[in-house]
């Protein structure tokens, strides 16, 4: 099934965008998006008063790979070692949804027209939801960069925003992917070593311990919330199917006498109506939980990883600094290449201090952002749950009223 959808970005409260300075000097958003067979095209829209740009307002079309290129360029840039690099948006994944739609198309003959239309609507809604989510994730990434005092000035970022041709960013080839793989292996092995080094600075020591544990628990919570939400959706799907089935059951015998006895025309379809409405409510609850809780957890999973990466880089710099110190001492002792060792040591010291300084601020900001995001989402989650439960309650009360009122 070929799906082309255009989706205007009237995106809802982004789950994780909080406390970002809405700065008139640079505003970025994704104004439009188009989903084609195997890729999504995002229209990145920028409004800026900065002199670096040729115009004050302009748009370009970007694909997912270009976002990744931008993110990687930040990570590889030594100057940014002391910052939490905003996590890259996840790859748009419509495979599952597409598969379901395809299966539905194949099975069209085996179900009634009503059932088919209903299921198609459900799947389309699901597809749209996934689509909206991926757009939101890409937008959040850009907004975070735009809000960061240093990253927003990055040249690659400006090119990304302004250059209206294809960036010709090709995906990594096999060799590069392999390199990445090894880099990660080394990094995690190194990370273990580095983590073992006790930090003199209390603040960083505490942060290290905290982040390690926090990250693992967010990971766990994220996985569990996904599972829970999937079950919820399955239950909602079942209710949907029951409602459709009741449609065929509702007219013949089962409710015939009902109708005669109670002289209520409404009643024969009442049960079906109840189930349909209940299904909608269950599905909505599952969707809201999804947005608020699961997305939040997923985002902070990536953010906490980025924070861990920062700590790792700092620890790495510390180790390098300590090694440089040892080298200098050795050089002085042997009285050989002292100047070289001194320069090297100074560089390491400078690098380390620079990282430490910005890292501290970054980590504090991270905390503030995190608390605010959680607060916002938890409040909204509670409010939505209440809204739905109250709606559900009203529906049930009126159904029961009709069913009981006639006796």
């Amino acid at each position, binding site marked *: 099934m070929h799906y082309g959808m255009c989706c205007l970005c009237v995106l809802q409260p982004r789950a994780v965008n909080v406390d970002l300075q809405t700065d008139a000097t640079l505003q970025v958003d994704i104004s439009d998006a188009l989903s084609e067979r195997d890729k999504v095209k995002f229209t990145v829209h920028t409004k800026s008063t900065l002199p670096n740009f040729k115009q004050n307002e302009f748009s370009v079309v970007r694909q997912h790979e270009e976002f990744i290129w931008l993110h990687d360029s930040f990570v590889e840039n030594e100057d940014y070692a002391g910052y939490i690099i905003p996590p890259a948006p996840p790859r748009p994944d419509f495979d599952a949804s597409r598969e379901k739609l395809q299966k539905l198309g194949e099975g069209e003959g085996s179900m009634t027209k009503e059932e088919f239309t209903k299921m198609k609507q459900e799947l389309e809604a699901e597809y749209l939801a996934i689509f909206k989510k991926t757009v939101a994730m890409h937008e959040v990434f850009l907004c975070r960069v735009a809000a960061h005092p240093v990253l927003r000035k990055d040249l690659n970022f400006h090119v990304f925003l302004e250059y209206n041709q294809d960036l010709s960013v090709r995906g990594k080839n096999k060799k590069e992917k392999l390199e990445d793989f090894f880099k990660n292996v080394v990094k995690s092995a190194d990370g273990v070593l580095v983590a073992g080094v006790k930090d003199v600075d209390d603040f960083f020591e505490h942060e290290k311990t*905290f982040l390690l*544990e*926090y990250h693992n*628990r*967010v990971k*766990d*919570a994220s996985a*569990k*919330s996904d*599972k*829970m939400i*999937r*079950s*919820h959706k*399955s*239950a909602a799907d*079942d*209710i949907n*199917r*029951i409602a459709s*089935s*009741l449609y065929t*059951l509702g007219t*013949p*015998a*089962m*409710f*015939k*006498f*009902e109708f*005669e*006895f*109670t*002289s209520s025309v409404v009643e024969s379809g009442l*049960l079906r109506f*109840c189930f349909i409405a*209940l299904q909608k409510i269950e599905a909505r609850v599952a969707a809201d939980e999804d947005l608020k809780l699961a997305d939040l957890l997923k985002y902070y999973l990536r953010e906490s990883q980025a924070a861990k990466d920062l700590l790792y880089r700092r620890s790495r710099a510390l180790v390098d600094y300590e090694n440089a110190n040892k080298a200098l001492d050795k050089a002085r002792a042997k009285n050989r290449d002292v100047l070289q060792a001194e320069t090297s040591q100074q560089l390491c010291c400078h690098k380390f201090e620079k990282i430490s300084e910005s890292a501290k601020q970054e980590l504090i900001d991270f*905390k503030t952002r*995190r*608390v605010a995001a*959680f*607060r916002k989402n*938890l*409040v909204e*989650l*509670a*409010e939505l*749950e*209440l809204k739905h*439960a*109250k709606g*559900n*309650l009203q529906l*049930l*009360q009126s*159904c*029961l009223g009709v*069913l009981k009122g*006639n*006796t």
Partner: protein
Amino acid sequence: MAASSDRNPPPFPSSEEPEAGLSDMADGDSDEGEDIFVNNSNPVAVSRGVSQPDGVNEEPPDLFSEEEASNPITKSNGVHSDDDNDLFAEAHVELSTDKSGNSSGKDLSSVSGPRTTSSFNQSPASMQPTSLEQLEEEEAKDSFDVDVAVTNPEKVGDGMNAYMAYKVSTRSSLPMFRSKTFSVRRRFSDFLGLYEKLSVKQSLHGCIVPPPPEKSVVGMTKVKVGMDDPSSVEFVERRRAALERYIQRVVSHPSLLQDPDVREFLERDDLPRAVNTQALSGAGFLKMINKASDAVNKMTIKMNESDTWFEDKFQEVENEEQQLRKLHALVDSLVNHRKELCGNTAVFAKSMAMLGNSEDNTALSRALSQLAEVEDKMEQLHQEQAASDFFIFAELLADYIRLLGAVRGCFDQRMRAWQRWQEAQSTLQKKREAEAKLLWANKPEKLQQAKEEITEWEARVTQYERDFDRIGMTVRKEVLRFEKEKAKDFKSQIIKYLEAMLQSQQRLIKFWEAFLPEAKAIA
């Protein structure tokens, strides 16, 4: 009356006459003035059900042919005793509205509550007044009830010979029981045994005998072996509830209640063990039904239905059974997903609690712990919802799938009766031909015998025809009663289901309302 001999319900060929005395009472009209239970004299209204069979009522043995002609107003009680009038004035009012065809639902349902059963003293096999109104009237008149509960499952014995014994308590004001309340202990095979006895007797007459719940080797083995896990507990509870519904349906059926086997089941302390119950549960039951259907399908002479009611109704029943099966599968799926959701929510709650522990912002930490608690409570709600889905909804569907099978069996019995009749007719024809041959051959002794045989078979043909008509009547009545009961049953179960949901939503609201301020307090 001249017709009174015709009015006597012809004795059923195969049944004993357990209520012999009573059927005497039930006969005649103006003779038994004092007996308020006499129905036969009552002009049975035409609207005995939704549709009137066209061709079936021509035969003299029907009570109804005469009664149809008479004044539809049921004044049975008034005829007999004045005292009754006052008590039953209300019943009259209700019934007259019934005549008009659209009943006020309230009246009917208050008259014939799920537990009411009349105690007309008639042989179960005999022709009862089959009008709905008469039924209602009897019930209103007597305003008796029989309430049966199945409780206290207890394991008796050990190992593989162990079994579950259930307490069957009856509460009734009917004089036919020895006391107002009493109870006995029964085991599952006793219930099956009861069904066997009833189905043998009653289904032959077109009665819909409620089928018992299914045997389950796996379930029972676990219980026997002494596993105390939640699924065993659930299994026992499921069975107990199913047995209770089963026996309640049996006693709600006016003719079945009269059956001495039912009484024995409810009252007798020491019931002889039922044997050969393999045939009669679950698969066995279905096999029996299907065998009957096969026999019908193999009939060489196809029945020419003068009245399409039976054909249409049968089709309806088959369709409904199919739909219920489909629906039942869906509800089963829902139950499983809810149970899954339950488990996943509990696990999620724990992980949130852990996350809350790691969080170093105190307010957020507390809020996350609170969230974990809310999710825990949600898990419990899901659990209860799943139980409700199952015990109320799924079991209802399962019961009716079985019952519809019984209804189909009923229709098949009628076909068998028709077949018997047709066969008797063809035998009679052969005998007549034989007689004709003998006349020509001039063998007086053999002729005499032939004549006797002809008379015998003529009687049989008449008998079987009557039987067929009677079964048709009974099947019709039974089906209408069944549909009424079904509508009531579904309605009351659905109300229960929705009420359970309502309560759980109310609790959900409480949980989240308590959580909201905690979330807002995060700083």
